[in-house]
């Protein structure tokens, strides 16, 4: 499905940050977004985009990795296949610490990448780029049509008022 909404172009980080702040003063936006070629620091604060929950996902996964490592090494070395090695006890856990650590990190790392993509809905719920220049040097605020109280005309005025150099309304069909 192609999305509908209104794009307000700003030239440069400064403009878009200030623009976002101005708009935010006029009213509250639940679903708005911005397209920038790089992470414009403090723009997220200006737009009051909530922080990411990713760290919790990673922590959980890391801990489960650790738990798995502990169980697996203990089970293989002491329960399933106990055999004398170098006169050490079957549960020689100090010798396993490196592997505990590595598995924790490995699980966390995978959770981190996959979690990030998942939270972004990439690649499966990815949407078409609205403007190819967003990955180059263009900055824009985006207010989708399903934003409560969406009205193209008033928003266009508001955007221009907020300092948008150009405003484009995206309708059914065009992208």
């Amino acid at each position, binding site marked *: 499905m192609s999305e509908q909404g209104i794009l307000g172009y700003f030239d440069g980080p400064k403009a878009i940050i200030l623009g976002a702040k101005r708009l935010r003063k006029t009213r509250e936006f639940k679903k708005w977004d911005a397209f920038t070629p790089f992470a414009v620091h403090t723009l997220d604060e200006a737009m009051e985009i909530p922080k990411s929950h990713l760290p919790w996902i990673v922590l959980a996964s890391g801990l489960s990795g650790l738990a798995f490592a502990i169980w697996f090494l203990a089970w293989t070395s002491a329960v399933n296949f106990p055999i004398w090695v170098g006169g*050490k006890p079957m549960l020689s856990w100090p010798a396993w610490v490196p592997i505990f650590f590595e598995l924790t990190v490995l699980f966390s*790392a995978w959770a981190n990448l996959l979690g990030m993509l998942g939270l972004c809905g990439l690649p499966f719920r990815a949407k078409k780029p609205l403007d190819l220049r967003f990955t180059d040097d263009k900055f824009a605020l985006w207010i989708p049509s399903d934003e409560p109280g969406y009205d193209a005309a008033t928003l266009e005025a508001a955007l221009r008022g907020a300092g948008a150099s150009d405003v484009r309304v995206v309708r059914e069909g065009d992208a």
Partner: protein
Amino acid sequence: MSTPETLRQRRPLVTGGKTVHDVSLDVCAPAERWGSRGYWLGFSTSQTALFIYLCAWLLVQTIGLKLVGINNRMDWGSFIVNFVFWVGIGHAGTLISAILFLFRQNWRTSINRAAEAMTVFAVSCAGVFPMLHTGRPWLAILFVFPYPNFRGPLWTNFRSPLEWDVFAVSTYATVSVLFWYMGMIPDLATLRDRAKHPIRKYLYGLFSMGWRGSMRHWVHYETAYMIFAALATPLVLSVHTIVSFDFAVSILPGWHTTIFPPYFVAGAIFSGFAMVVTLLVPARKLFHLEDYITIDHLEVMNKIILLTGSLVGFSYITEFFIAVYSGAPFEKFAFLNRAFGPFGWAYWIMMSCNLITPQFFWFKKIRRSIPLMFLLSIFVNIGMWFERYVIVVTLTRAFVMPQWGTYVMTFWDAVILLGSFGQFMTLFLLFCRVLPVCNMSEIKAFHPDTLRQIRESHDHE
């Protein structure tokens, strides 16, 4: 996310009045242009080396390890040396992108991509050796992994440093690749959006995973990047620690020393940075990136080489002193033998390359002189190879005197050592042509103009 204070810069990270748009133009250029003659020359050379490398391995694996210099007195040789050497090289990248990120060293942005790529390729070179140095690689590739099997209960020995290696190196390789890849997603999107040819567009589109620079995505992305940095930092320190366990956990005098982990890590960073310099000095010329990888970047790296080099030299002296002072006769003998025994020459090559060479970087002139830093970085690489060589040849004179032997590298040892560089360079040059050599989105984020605007947006109200 970054706070305004950290955004203040001493010197601009991008010179030559390049705009944000120019960044995309210049960085994408190598991937969009046909390679220069210099490029193809280098590429074909490395590929020939790679081919010879593969043939050499094929021969050694068919006839057997009798072709190389190792023997029953000294069971490890150049293969293990090469392994440790390459793993060491593979430390700079992750270090630059992780630790320097945590320390807010923003100058890292223009070199971290290349450095990470170097890490991945160095680790892939390293990975070849521990597998193929075994007597029966075709079994080793299976047996070292704890997989359930139908021969009844049979697992691996998790007490063995070599098994730790299996986990450490494979984890490190995986995490490096993931980190590297995630950092590339926005840039791949840029390449996708600039691409004209449908196939290019499709491929870059595939790997950029539909990134479109949405602010809500940037929030997650930045968090993930931070977490990766936090994960990779202890990891990068652990990998060479665990590699050093291969030696430190044994009971051999000269190997069994607690100083090894820090000393190996320092050495790894040392050699890694040297390799970054060795690579970037020609690369920035070849791909016209002087404005992004500026002389200031190189100077900072030389400072790090100076620091780590001095650390390494210090640990050389410490371990020698401790060994001789300890009064443990075997330990004492091992180290005196290292310095003055039959392999003393290697020891002194190591000392002069690793202890003396970096000291030249005390001088600003040398730090900022392209040809000199290139030369010195190569010396450092040689020195670091010999450091591992010196450690391994300790085997020739162990406990039991009648079993003392000697070690002479054969022709095939040499071919395989040089060939591994062929593998490394082939991969690296390939990378330069198809992937963004610099981290565009970050360079843009730390572009002087960007920083100014963001500062102003704060000073505004």
